[in-house]
């Protein structure tokens, strides 16, 4: 009867931002990114990619509640970098990795089609 619409799980409501950014008030170079309508799929790959960044001191994500369709990504970096820079770098690196993966897979499919 009063069940929320299913699409609320993945459609960002009008007037809300997909990503918002909030600096930590006490710690310099620390910030929390709130990503609307995303889950472990994005949260975990971002976190792991951030861990490979030497300037990132802390990176973690959480899904605060299963019925709140958002994740919080928290990043703390050294003074050599900034949370925003690390965040952008992680997305760029993942994007390039997926480009590479896509090419690799397409080549393999073509190779497979030839051989069999």
């Amino acid at each position: 009867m009063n069940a929320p619409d299913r699409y609320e799980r993945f459609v960002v409501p009008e007037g809300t931002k997909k990503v918002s950014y909030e600096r930590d008030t006490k710690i310099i170079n620390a910030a929390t990114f709130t990503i609307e309508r995303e889950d472990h799929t994005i949260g975990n790959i971002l976190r792991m990619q951030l861990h490979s960044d030497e300037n990132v001191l802390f990176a973690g994500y959480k899904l605060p509640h299963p019925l709140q369709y958002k994740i919080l990504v928290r990043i703390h970096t050294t003074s050599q970098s900034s949370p925003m820079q690390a965040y952008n770098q992680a997305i760029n690196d993942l994007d390039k990795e997926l480009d590479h993966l896509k090419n690799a897979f397409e080549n393999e499919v073509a190779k497979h089609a030839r051989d069999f």
Partner: protein
Amino acid sequence: MEGASYQRFPKIKIRELKDDYAKFELRDTDASVANALRRVMIAEVPTIAIDLVEIEVNSSVLNDEFIAHRLGLIPLTSERAMSMRFSRDCDACDGDGQCEFCSVEFHLRAKCMSDQTLDVTSNDLYSSDHTVVPVNFTDSAGYDSSEQRGVIIVKLRRGQELRLRAIARKGIGKDHAKWSPAATVTFMYEPEIHINEDMMDTLSLEDKQSFVESSPTRVFDIDPNTQQVVVVDPEAYTYDDEVLKKAEAMGKPGLVEIYAKEDSFIFTVESTGAIKASQMVLNAIEILKQKLDAVRLSEDTVEADDQFGELGAHMRGG
């Protein structure tokens, strides 16, 4: 201020590829990427499925909503889905989801006129678009191709009739499982098995035999010529620890060592037939890229922070 790149270059090797099945190795990346791919394939690669049913006549034994639900679960060929629009953001039909850009119409008319029960199947659905039709399982599954077996929707006896109109739309598995193109998607860590040969040589043949048999799956065997224990199929290992316990029980801890390679995964992808298994992987990569693109920081967020930074510097006396 561009930082150093920490990009990886993963490798892929396809082992087996059929229309509805794929098995491949993914290397030089981590579990988060492998799991993201798996999750996207199951829940976010779009397909087309029946979403709205208008029943004109239904005198069958199944009620209207039961039939509507069954229709929704029939896989439809969805190569077009990636380029199709979601009904909710289709401009051409104001979101009521009945135009050619976001929907496909189906009709079904069946009436049983004989004493023999009539099977109404997915083959009785008439599509308005020849690229979107119920999946035909006959050729790939190895059934006799002369027998065109569809998915049974309902059975009718003499005098019963079913007449309906259905609208199929694009959707994703997160919304409803009927839109998921995946039957199963799994990945496992590639195991690395080391046998301590010196210790193994101290075992008698019977002990070797009982060691080999302690594994529930056939991972080890005894070479008939040399009578040595060899690994025949490392991937049959299910991380059950049975052989390790056996080694311990025989008083030979460290007889074998088994590690999971943290950066090598073996994927198994099975499709419902809506899209090819290989296409499903490619679509998943594409969707994941789009998702990453959507979580990039918007310009105004960056600007607002720049101003904040200046303010902060000012306050610190800079």
